């Protein structure tokens, strides 16, 4: 499938791959995981190499690359290591939406530190299909009063900015998108939430209690009336799809490598047909998932993709990643269960990201509702 990439995409893919191979260090990864630490240094290097902020307009300091390009980067990062890859990929969550819809001041405030690897955004966005979300707003003159609690917010304690979707308190009006710095009165960020995986990505709950922000923090529709929250949702779907795809590919690499190395019964285990068939089945699924994510990403770039196909692509990549990490762990036998072998955290990270995104059932409901429509 790589032969279908443009020359520029091949270049970007290679840059991301070289970066991940060169900069990610397995011992350091285990160390950061144990300390539950965000990989600040690696983020800085990634920023220097322009691997973060790829899709942002040049005016915002970005590369003006397409979604497909950014999918390739996310895939490569998560492929080399799931925990590090996810941490880096979440660092600028939602920022591309700011870059596209924000005012010049908003863009500058957010992007300047972000692009230097100095800051991180935390996205407070309801689970797809959850209406209304946990955070609501009330408008008084030129201020918005925010209330509510989001039970899991990625990187809230280390973020400098919150990018928040809020719903009208009285149910009248539209959901809005807000960007504001974290150090405001009325915001409480909980302790770290201990969880199954994603050990370099922090989870906290965040509570707003009569938090007052100016209406100037709103990120509004563009001149064509495109809603930034819609775009945010779409970008997240494709990005998380790319994360799953990357983790699946990474697990596949580990499994194939180990099966060709490990000997039992005086043979490489890849020589046993039961194992070689697993490899073939894994590869087949990987190709299916990749086709689905890549075509959704290309359609994003052509602005001709609906939510249905994006969810379908993401779910397909998620199922793929769950299946591949599980099989890859199994192929490792006992060592697969030990934390010094990376396949162990690939397995946990996929499950952890899966639950972060909400239940499969919710996303399936969104697809089916669109396909079935109204029944009479």
């Amino acid at each position, binding site marked *: 499938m790589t032969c279908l990439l443009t020359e520029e995409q091949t270049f970007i893919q290679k840059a991301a791959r070289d970066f991940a191979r060169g900069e990610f260090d397995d011992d350091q990864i285990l160390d950061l995981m144990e300390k539950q630490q965000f990989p600040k240094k690696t983020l800085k290097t990634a920023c220097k190499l322009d691997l973060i902020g790829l899709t942002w307009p040049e005016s915002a300091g970005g590369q003006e690359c397409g979604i497909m390009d950014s999918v390739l980067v996310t895939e490569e990062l998560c492929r080399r290591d799931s925990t590090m890859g996810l941490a880096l990929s979440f660092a600028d969550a939602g920022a591309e939406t700011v870059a596209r819809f924000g005012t010049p001041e908003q863009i500058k405030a957010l992007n300047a530190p972000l692009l230097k690897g100095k800051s991180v955004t935390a996205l407070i966005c309801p689970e797809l299909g959850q209406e209304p979300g946990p955070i609501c707003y009330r408008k008084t003159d030129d201020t918005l009063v925010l209330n509510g609690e989001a*039970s*899991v917010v990625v990187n809230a304690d280390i973020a400098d900015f919150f990018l928040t979707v809020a719903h009208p308190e009285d149910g009248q009006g539209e959901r809005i998108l807000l960007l504001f710095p974290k150090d405001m009165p009325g915001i409480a960020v909980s302790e770290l*939430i*201990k*969880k*199954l*995986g994603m050990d370099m990505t922090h989870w906290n709950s965040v509570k707003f209690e009569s938090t007052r922000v100016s209406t100037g923090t709103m990120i509004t529709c563009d001149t064509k009336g495109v809603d930034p929250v819609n775009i945010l949702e779409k970008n997240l779907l494709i990005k998380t799809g790319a994360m799953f795809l990357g983790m699946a590919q990474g697990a596949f690499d580990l499994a194939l490598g180990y099966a060709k190395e490990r*000997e*039992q*019964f*005086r043979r490489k285990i890849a020589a*046993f047909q*039961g*194992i070689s068939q697993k490899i073939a089945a894994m590869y087949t699924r990987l190709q299916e998932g990749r086709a689905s994510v890549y075509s959704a990403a290309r359609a994003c770039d052509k602005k001709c993709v609906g939510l249905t196909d994006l969810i379908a692509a993401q779910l397909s990549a998620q199922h793929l990643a*769950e299946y591949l990490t*599980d099989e890859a*762990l*199994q192929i490792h*036998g*006992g060592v*697969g*269960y*030990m*934390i*010094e072998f990376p396949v*162990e955290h690939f*397995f*946990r990270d996929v*499950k*952890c990201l*899966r*639950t*972060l995104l*909400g*239940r*499969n*059932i919710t996303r*399936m409901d969104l697809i089916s509702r669109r396909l079935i429509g109204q029944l009479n």
Partner: protein
Amino acid sequence: MTLLQADQLEALRMEIRQFAQKELAPFEQDVESNNRIPEHILAQMRERGYFGLTIPKEYGGMGMGKTAFCTVEEELAKTHFAFMDIISLNNGLGSRSIVLDGNEAQKKKYLPRLASGEWISAFTLTEPNAGSDAASITTTAEKKGDVYLLNGMKHFITNAPIADVFIVIAVTDPDKGAKGGISAFIVEKDFPGISIGNVHQSMGMQGSHKSEVIFKDTPVPVQNLIGTEGKGLTVALKTVDEGRMGVAATSVGMATRLLDMAVEYATSKKFNDKPLSRYQSFEWLLADMATELYAARTILYKTAAKMDRKEDAQLEVAMCKLYGSEMVGRVVEKAMEIFGKDGCLFENVVERILRDARILRIFEGTAEIHRIIIGRKLLAGQRPL
């Protein structure tokens, strides 16, 4: 061996269940956070005789049959895996070879201590290059006068850091290898030249300790050879075979806990505006969980009964372990979907069982090795009964 009647089995189940609920459940999270079982719980387990459930009465145990023992394992596995794991070795791989093939002196010396829990045992077979292919071990036991000198390295040995006694499988005749060249020994931790290497950190199984064990010219008295020289692999594989029922019983116990929790969650928590249980999606997940669990439990106790009748049940045992361990994997997946984000949080039992249950498809013979065992027996004309 004394076989319990149905009413006695039910009483046993209730006794263990009450103990588990009252004494063990409050400490599950403690085990998980501190990676150890509190001493007062171990003391209670010793007092109740849990370390010697399968050891014959004349050596201080309770002489339980397979059905009764699986019942205990199932009930304990509903709490924290470590509570079940800590008693499983003394009742299984750590004592069975002595019970089955040991001489009277060995039985008298070791079994009462294992039964009382005064001593903790470890089963020491796997090496870095000999996992599924156990016959290719290279740890040697060379006879020198009235001792065997042990040399070699084992890994992934459960209980090794806390064990008082090791059942060690080693090569006594390299020329014969698997065909009569492997023997089993009882090795006490105070014998010279034994060291504990790297302690393994794993995805799950907190409170259960595993490590490398290194033998360097460790002298083992000839009287500590189990059975006859060269029969060690047969002894080992026989006990491993029996022990696999423990994996199946654990799978059933864990899945039962998950199902109960999932039903409770689905009826008490809301999805959108209605309880989860009012949606077909969740209802059907529960239906699948329960159906597979029922199948696994049924073959488990059917096979245990066959073993209690002293009939050959190797084929069925392999099926119980394979199906049980894969069943609980699927049940965890469904529980994750029901619990949503809650299922991913550290304090949630679903999260813990997800990590703990993953080992069940790997140790005591991987799922792949079990498919080989089952396949070969089928092709040799056997069928499960």
